[in-house]
Every structure is written in structure tokens, then in C-alpha cells.
């Protein structure tokens, strides 16, 4: 029995014939397992040539892949990123598979001191998806960070579509706060480092066990979408951690959050997004809940202390092909009054990425390869407020600027070089530590 799979490498479509049993008639064979894979390559189809549906989105997917042209087809927004990925699929196989890998080298220096050259395998992520039934889907995302230092199930959820405006989702979901948490795959970005505010104020990738709803209403020119979830949430490590600052990602050290809520109060996450063709997409999101253990067995330990995070995200592609993407976040944390001011009660941050295609043509045999110039400007303030003792501003903030160049032999692969310079000021406002360096790496879907 033979099944045909399709896979995209660069601009080449690969047709894969999988034989369930060894077959003497197959043109080429390798028999690593009971199944045998044969590959046949052929040129990529043109726009006028129908292509297998599994690959259609690769060419009409969201603009973060920097095609340098206006979107065609249905409008895609950040919330679609979960499924808007290249999968190896077969019309008969029950499961689609995909993933991405990113690795880099970097040389950074802080105030004249350096740890030298490092090579980093930041993450390898594997996607497994399945259409269980008509309008019932499953998708999972398993990530290996820094080799096997961290292995996480970032997403593993079942979606049931009742109507386009009403879908049910349950499992391990990514809380839809901001845009990056939903749309974070490495190959979509021209920068090796993730945006700082998106990983240190919003704890991307931030996922929890829970249930909720989402849906869309759309026409040919605009789409409006919403998401609403109840999940497990934060714990008190956000103000009791080795960072010496309020640090929401510290809660990810609590592995029990996939097993039980820290305090029995669900984290609520809501997002609305609107996109109009030629204008761009804007998203507003909020998540809030109680982070402390305020009672044990009915015995009151403390008042309920809330953490609330608001985010605003925006992206658009200009007629010149320049892509602008941004996210801004504000967090409010109820920290006990007698706890140290080192731990911020308010945090804020944001980033703007500007990516402009410089060259788009056939290069080194890759059709429609693109060279992009990119610039990120980012700002994070981990402690907004003033010292109780002096009225002077609390600092603990940073600015960063990251120019870069990227080369995309295909939409799904990026080779990128960044120069990073950032100024980090301590809580007291002493002269900033200046860090700068060069990073070079790649990220690719597979």
C-alpha cells in the first residue's frame, strides 16, 4: 500500500511516497522501518497550479513570514498562528507532523567583560496535529529548550467548532495575551532573541491547563475575533524568585500548575482582535487572577493578591512591503506593603519590529528568496513607581536596539544576523550596564 505525502523544502515541493510494506516495484528504497520512504522532487507549483491544500497556507500565510507582498486569500491573524504552520500531512494519515528548530551563536560583552563565544540550540519544537473528526481538531506543541534543559508541552488542546463564531477549546492552551505568546515560532522572526517584554513581563511561552471559547466573524476585507479562557494561573514565585524583581515567568517553575491550581482561583484571559485588509491587525488582551495562596484548608493566610496583565498588539504591512509589528504590555501586581520595593507593583514594556525587504529574487537557485533589513527597539520597566523613602523614581529598566539582516531562501527558513545593544539600569538608577554583541543563527520549520 502506498501513501503520498507532500513536504516543502525551500521552494521545492517534495512528494513523498510511503510504502506500508516493502515493495519491490518502488523506484528507490531505504528500509529503516517497516515503512519505507521514497522521495521524488518536482518544481514548486505556480499560483495558477492547484497545489495540495496542506501547502496552500504556506504561500498565503500571515505576513510575519515577510513575503513582501500583500496577503491573499482569507485574512489571518495572530490567533491563527497555532494552526498556521507547515505540517507534513497525508490525506489518509490520521496525524500531521511538523516543527521547527533554531540555533545560533553569539558573542556578547557587558561593560568590557565577555564570556566569549557561545553556541546555543535554543529550541526544537515538534507539532503533532490531527483532524479527529469534521470540525474537531487536536494539536500539540512539544518544545525542547536549550537541548533538553527544559521539555515542555506548550500546547495540547482539542478544538470543537460549533460555528465559526463559537469554538470550544480545552487542554493545555496558550493564554492569548499579547501577540507574541500566540505567534512565537522562531522561523517567523528576524531576531534571534525573543522580545524582552514578551518573555519577562508576559511569560511567553505561557500556557496552562484550561478551557474556553473562541471565534471569528469575517468578510473578505476584515476579520474580528475573540478568545476567552479559564485556566490555572500564577503562584507566589512571581514575587519570590531569584531575579530579585517581580518576574511573572518565575511561576513556570511550578510544574504542578498542569496538575492543580495553586490557589483554586482560575486565571481569566480575554482577547479581542480586529484586522482590516491593508490597515493591519490590532489586538487587545487581558489576563488576571489571584497569585497567592490565601488559604489552606479554609484557614485564612493572607488577603487575595491579584496579578493583572493588559496587552496591546498591532501589526501591518505597508505598501512598500515593510512589515511593522509591535506589542505593549502593562502588569499590575498586588505586592504586600511590607515586602521589599525591589519587587515592582507595576511593570510595563513593549517592542516595535520593522522589517523591510531589500532584495527579493532568485538567489543561489532559491526562487523568491528575500534579504530583509530589520530593526527592533524595545523597552522594559520592571518597577514603575517611586521610592517610599525619597520619592525618587524606581528604575530597574532597560532599553535595547537590535538592527539585523536576514536571508530567507524560503518563507519557512530564516538565516539571520543581529547586533544587539542594550542599556540596563538597576533599581537605584546607577550608571547603566551596557551590553552589546553579535548574534548569528537560523530558524527553520521542518
Amino acid at each position, binding site marked *: 500500500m502506498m501513501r503520498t505525502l507532500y513536504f516543502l523544502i525551500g521552494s521545492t515541493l517534495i512528494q513523498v511516497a510511503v510504502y506500508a510494506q516493502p515493495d519491490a516495484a518502488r523506484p528507490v528504497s531505504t528500509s529503516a522501518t517497516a515503512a519505507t520512504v521514497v522521495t521524488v522532487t518536482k518544481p514548486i507549483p505556480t499560483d495558477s497550479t492547484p497545489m495540495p491544500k496542506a501547502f496552500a497556507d504556506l504561500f498565503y500565510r500571515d505576513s510575519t513570514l515577510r513575503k513582501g507582498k500583500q496577503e491573499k486569500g482569507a485574512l489571518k491573524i495572530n490567533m491563527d498562528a497555532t494552526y498556521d504552520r507547515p505540517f507534513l500531512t497525508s490525506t489518509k494519515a490520521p496525524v500531521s507532523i511538523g516543527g521547527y528548530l533554531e540555533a545560533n551563536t553569539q558573542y556578547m560583552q557587558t561593560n*568590557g567583560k565577555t564570556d566569549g563565544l557561545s553556541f546555543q540550540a535554543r529550541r526544537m519544537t515538534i507539532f503533532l496535529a490531527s483532524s479527529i473528526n469534521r470540525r474537531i481538531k487536536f494539536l500539540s506543541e512539544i518544545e525542547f529548550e536549550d537541548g533538553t534543559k527544559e521539555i515542555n508541552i506548550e500546547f495540547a488542546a482539542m478544538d470543537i467548532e460549533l460555528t465559526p463564531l463559537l469554538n470550544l477549546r480545552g487542554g493545555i492552551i496558550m493564554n492569548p495575551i499579547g501577540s507574541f505568546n500566540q505567534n512565537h515560532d522562531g522561523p517567523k522572526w528576524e531576531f534571534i532573541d525573543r522580545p524582552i517584554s514578551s518573555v519577562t513581563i508576559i511569560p511567553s511561552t505561557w500556557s496552562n491547563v484550561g478551557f474556553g471559547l473562541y471565534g471569528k466573524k469575517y468578510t473578505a476585507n476584515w476579520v474580528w475575533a475573540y478568545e476567552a479562557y479559564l485556566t490555572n494561573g500564577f503562584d507566589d514565585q512571581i514575587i519570590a524568585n531569584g531575579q530579585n524583581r517581580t518576574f511573572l515567568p518565575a511561576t513556570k517553575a511550578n510544574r504542578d500548575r498542569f496538575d492543580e491550581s495553586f490557589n483554586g482561583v482560575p486565571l481569566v484571559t480575554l482577547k479581542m482582535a480586529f484586522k482590516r485588509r491593508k490597515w493591519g491587525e490590532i489586538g487587545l488582551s487581558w489576563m488576571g487572577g489571584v497569585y497567592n495562596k490565601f488559604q489552606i484548608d479554609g484557614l485564612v*493566610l493572607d488577603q487575595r493578591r491579584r496579578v493583572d496583565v493588559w496587552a496591546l498588539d498591532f501589526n501591518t504591512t505597508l505598501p512598500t512591503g515593510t512589515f511593522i509589528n509591535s506589542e505593549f504590555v502593562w502588569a499590575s501586581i498586588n505586592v504586600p506593603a*511590607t515586602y521589599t520595593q*525591589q519587587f515592582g507593583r507595576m511593570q510595563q514594556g513593549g517592542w516595535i519590529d520593522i522589517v523591510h525587504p531589500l532584495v527579493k529574487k532568485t538567489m543561489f537557485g532559491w526562487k523568491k528568496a528575500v534579504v530583509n533589513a530589520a530593526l527592533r527597539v524595545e523597552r522594559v520597566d520592571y518597577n514603575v513607581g517611586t521610592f517610599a523613602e525619597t520619592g525618587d523614581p524606581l528604575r530597574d529598566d532597560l532599553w535595547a536596539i537590535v538592527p539585523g539582516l536576514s536571508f530567507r531562501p524560503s518563507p519557512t527558513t530564516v538565516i539571520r544576523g543581529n547586533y544587539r545593544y542594550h542599556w540596563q539600569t538597576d533599581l537605584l538608577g*546607577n*550608571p547603566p550596564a551596557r551590553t552589546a554583541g553579535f548574534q548569528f543563527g537560523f530558524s527553520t520549520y521542518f
Partner: protein
Amino acid sequence: MKKITLLYLVLSVIVLVAVACEALLPAAPADDALLDGPIAELTPEQNALFALGDAAFNRDIFTPATGLGPIFVASSCGSCHAGDGKGTPFTTLTRFGQHDDTGNRFMGQGGPQLQNRAIPGHTAELLPAGAVFSRFTPPANTGLGLLAALSDEQILANADPTDRDGDGISGVPNWIHAPHYFKPQWFHKEQNDRYVGRFGKKAAAIDLLHQTVNAYKQDMGITSEFDSEDPINYNVSGQAGDGVDDPEVTSAKVNAVVFYLRTLKVPLQRTPADPMVVAGKQLFISLDCGKCHTPDWKTGQSDVAALANRTFSPYTDLLLHDMGAGLDDGYTEGIAKTAEWKTPALWGLGLSQNSQGGRVFLLHDGRAHSVDEAIRLHGGEASRSVEKYANLAEAERGKLLRFLDTL
């Protein structure tokens, strides 16, 4: 674009980046602009121990899970001593409970230090009614190893309790009961079961281990094998610790921090040959400032070769002096009188703003916001010098202040 053109473009970028690397990477600040870093001539083994202590001092952040509190002042050493410099009002601590040389009568009520912060779920300490108190701004850590390497005999040689020379400046040591873990060295001198204190605002700590163990416990609520009891809030019932097994740091870590403090470099004077600075130093001496802020010292033997037989200029005599009613908070430690304060070292003074958030907070509680104000707030034994200072022409005062700014 032809392939070859693109290749040239890529290669050009690589070459440009390589050439520009030096310019694009932030350089180290000048050595004389920094307080941190080790003294020269440490052995590789000592450098490794310094690095261990550096990590413990600057990167160990204590949390409730690792023993912070339950009541505390700061969550790390570096919180109080940013860049090994002076602290700010944010980490200024409060000592209370002792008003004469008979000891602290509030030890059973949380003395001698107020822990004004608490981990979540615990209550911060409040000052007991009737307790005298004083507020201490954290000092810089630099050059402490050289001060620790001086002999008691050298320090006592400058004492003049009865003002025999009639200059109005006395200078007395603070004799301190040693903690159980104190191990006297060849240079320590015992008197009535007490030793000369040389660290802290009132010179209440005999050596750097004494100072470090106290700081772990009193500032951060961290227990060690040297002192294994958490600070307790006597304002509330229960008096439980933080629920973390004691000791919360190993003696190896405490000793590494002590070694780090011993081997931190001394602040380097900037532009010492500047004629204005030279003139300022002459004024400093002629105004008798140097009688307490003794400029030059030389160490004797030391188990760390880099600390042995070194001449250095801390501008302190490590003795107590009466600073007058204006600086008398009514609180004291050891046998010091309430108006008596240990002469603080002046080295690093000009870099204070780099650790105090761009401002300066001088004197024991940070009440002075400039060197000029700090000088004018001196009283007691310093009265004559302050009067001379006030009578200087503005240009002369400028020279003196310029000199102090280079320290």
C-alpha cells in the same frame, strides 16, 4: 544581482562587522571609576575563591524558599551595596535598643536591628516603644581587606582618649565582646575579654567574618553555621522562623564572601597630580581633617600575600570620635558613647553617586546630600576643623572639595 555581487556584499558586511567589533562592543569603564574587582596579585586559586564570593555576594538572591526572612531588610548583599558602593535610604537599616555601654536592653524585643520588611504571610517588625534608635546607611565594601590586615596595635597607637596633645581630638577604640566563632589572629589584642572593633558605623564588628555573619542574619534573615537562629518578630505571637531548614547558607559560602570582601580592590584616586587636587589635600591636612581621617597606613604580615606589607590611603583611623550633639541619635553599640562614631574611610567618596542612584547620601544615616553639607554637619571633636573650613575662601573650599571628589 549576480551571485558574485551578493557574495562580495556578504563578505564586505562580515569584514566591516569584524573591524567594527571593537567599537561596537561596550568598553570597560576606567579602572578608577569602579569600586568592584579584585586586588592585584591574587593567585589563580585566590581568584577562583574571589569569583565564588563575588557570585554569592552579588548574585545570590534569597527568597522565602531559600531562607529569606521571615523578617528582613534586603534580599541580597548586592541590594545594599550596588557595585560594592554605598547604599541609599532604600536599604538604610535601623538599629535600636542601646543607649549606654551596659548593653542592649531590647535584645528580647528584636534588638539590635529592626527588620522592617517581611516575606509574604509574615509581619514586619515595628520599633518597640521607648527604644532609642539610629539609622545606618550601608557603607562601601572596598579595601576592607587592608583595613582588616592592620594590627590592633597600629590602631591603638592613634588613640588619645585623654587628649594628651590638647588638639581637641581624642579617638578611642570600641572594645567588643567576640562572638563564639571568632578566632583571634596574631594582630588582635584582648582586653577584658573584648577585642578592638573596626567595622560598622560604631566599630561594633571585630573582623569581616563577624560583620558578614551579622549581615546575613540581621539584614537578610539568613542563618549560617555561625549563627543558626532566624530573626524573630517579637511583635507577634508564634515567633516561628521561616520554615526553611537551618543553616540556610553553608560556612563555605560565608567564608567565600569574607574572602571576597577581603580582596576587593581599593578605590583608585583620580587625577592625584592635578595642582588643584594637590592643594586641596594640603588644605585637608592643614585643617586637621587628617587627624581622624588618617591618610596613610601600611599593613604587616598577612595570610594573603597580596595584602601583606601594602601602603594604602583609606583616610580613617578606625577609632571612635565624639561628633557632637547634632549627630547624637541617642543609640550606641559596644562601649561607644551615643555621640561617638567610627571615622568612616573616605576612599571611594567621589564615586558615591555611582552606587547611590546619581545622588549622594552621606554621614551615618545619609542625611547629608553633598560633601560640603557632610563637613558642615560635623561637630564635637571636629568643631575646630569645621570652623576653619567655613572660614576658607570659596576657591579654597573648592580645592578641598575637589580633592575629596578624587578619592
